[in-house]
């Protein structure tokens, strides 16, 4: 069986910049694949290639086995696209927006009217349906945008940073809809800068940096690449830090991580489980170290990202040694 989405060695240049630099990707049908990366990593560019908006310079990409260049028209029948730049028509009302796109999707009059009402209700837009979209809040626009992309119940849905800039309530609404869609069998390719979002929604996560996938797996697999659990200790007194490190060292915890300061001490744990917390508590008590908080923490995707790219997720990426200049334009060809 063909993968729902298959990308092989895709290169896309914008002038001297390589927005995509040999990107490979496979998404299984009916699952959510999260593309995680900083601004300018190439996430939007690959979505635009897959949505037939941009032809790749090299490599090939297919959706449900259909080539995005030579079979673009067939691809367009299977996909929905929604994103950070909500493509709603501000001068039309919500209902008119959906009717327009339903017509352009070549749905018949009655079918279109029924589907439009259904989507307005599902996205909590019925009350605002006959107001121009320019009066909508950011969350409402994003919901209308998402509704517009779902008119034909596409098998593949591209969500380009669907919650960027949204308040938590609107974000949760979008997340809930995405989960419902996946239950109904839709394949979702989701790009995000938010590790939390990838953690919440995606079955698999591909970490993208500088136009390439640099790591791929389930959230847990990625976290395991960074290492196991960490013991997190908050000391009553920063002066007892060394004593605490020595005591935990006897349990097999390696030295403290760089960057630890003051009363917060984070060391890798030799094994998982509640027993570890008890052992650490006993060792610290024996050494006479005062502790105000003690816990075992799995690494977050933030840690993964830091480990893989040497970058915090919210900072612009700078190239590792031997690379060409940083790509600034990649995320924003629109």
């Amino acid at each position: 069986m063909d993968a729902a989405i298959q990308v092989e060695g895709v290169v896309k240049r914008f002038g001297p910049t390589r927005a995509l630099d040999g990107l490979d990707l496979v998404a299984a049908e009916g699952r959510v694949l999260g593309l995680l990366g900083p601004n300018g990593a190439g996430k939007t560019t690959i979505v635009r290639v897959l949505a037939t908006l941009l032809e790749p310079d090299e490599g090939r990409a297919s959706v449900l086995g259909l080539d995005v260049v030579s079979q673009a028209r067939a691809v367009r029948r299977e996909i929905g696209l929604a994103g950070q730049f909500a493509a709603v028509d501000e001068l039309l009302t919500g209902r008119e927006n959906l009717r327009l796109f339903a017509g352009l999707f070549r749905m018949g009059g009655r079918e279109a009217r029924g589907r439009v009402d259904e989507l307005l209700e599902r996205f909590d837009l019925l009350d605002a349906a006959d107001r121009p979209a320019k009066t909508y809040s950011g969350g409402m626009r994003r919901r209308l945008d998402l509704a517009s992309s779902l008119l034909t119940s596409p098998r593949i849905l591209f969500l380009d940073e669907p919650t960027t800039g949204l308040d938590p309530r609107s974000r949760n609404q979008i997340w809930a809809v995405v989960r419902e869609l996946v239950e109904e069998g839709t394949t979702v390719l989701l790009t995000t800068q938010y590790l939390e979002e990838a953690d919440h929604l995606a079955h698999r996560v591909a970490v993208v940096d500088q136009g390439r996938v640099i790591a791929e797996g389930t959230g847990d697999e990625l976290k395991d690449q960074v290492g196991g659990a960490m013991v997190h200790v908050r000391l009553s007194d920063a002066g007892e830090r060394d004593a605490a490190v020595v005591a935990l060292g006897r349990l097999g915890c390696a030295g403290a991580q760089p960057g630890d300061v003051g009363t917060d001490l984070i060391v890798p744990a030799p094994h998982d489980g509640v027993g570890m917390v008890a052992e650490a508590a006993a060792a610290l008590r024996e050494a006479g170290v005062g502790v105000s908080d003690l816990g075992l923490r799995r690494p977050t995707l933030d840690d993964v990202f830091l480990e893989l790219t040497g970058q915090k997720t919210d900072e612009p990426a700078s190239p590792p040694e031997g690379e060409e200049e940083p790509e600034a334009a990649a995320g924003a060809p629109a």
Partner: protein
Amino acid sequence: MNAPRALVGEDGLLAEAGWTLRDCALVTGRNLRHFVRQPQLLLFSTIQPVMFILLFSFVFGGAIGATLPPGVDYVDFLLPGIFIQSSAFRASQTAVGLAEDLQRGVVDRMRSMPMSRAAVLVGRTTADLVRSLFVVALMIAVGYLVGFRFTEGVLAAAGAVVVVLLFGFGLSWIFTLVGLVTDSAEAAQSAGFVAIFPLVFASSVFVPIETMPSWLEGFAGVSPVTAAVDSARALSLGGEVSDPLLLFLGWLAGLLAVFVPLSVWRYRRMS
């Protein structure tokens, strides 16, 4: 895509042509709604030509009227010119509207949909054509208030209006390409102004070209603007129709033959 396709049937070329027309009509309707929802823009696009009618007929009427053949009133001479001039100035609005759509992402959605590749462009130029019809009708009404009259009957008058609309339609395809290439409403507008202004003034819009220096008269004589104005003028007031009309139709066919395919090609290849 490359396999030969049947003419009839659900996936045949005729059905496809029907869908294409429907797509174009939907986008046209959407753009016309935009005009209605922004009455202030419609107002400004009608104030300017009305202002030109009043200013030119009252300010220059006395001076220029003296150079006209005896028996021709300047307001009669002027109006067909102003129709064409305002169409030319308005044509850059096509680029502005298109550039705005491109920036807002609506076109991205449409390009990701299985709809006609020409509908966004045809819908834009057709809606602009309908708006032109509205503006020209208003200008004729104002013209009648200041003494303008069609003298050649209803059919000829309708012909004059069709010439004006076709002229604007042809130009708006140039600006379709400009809008697709510049991708910015402001840039499109200034590009339009720089190109259109000299073309309009170096023509028979405001004055008979015989009053110009000979090198300029030569240029103005073959200009599509002059051809359009002379056609509309002859259909409004009488005079030699076929020569300017043929030149105008030649220009129109040429413009459309070049700029429609170029625009569609550019739209398909957009990134």
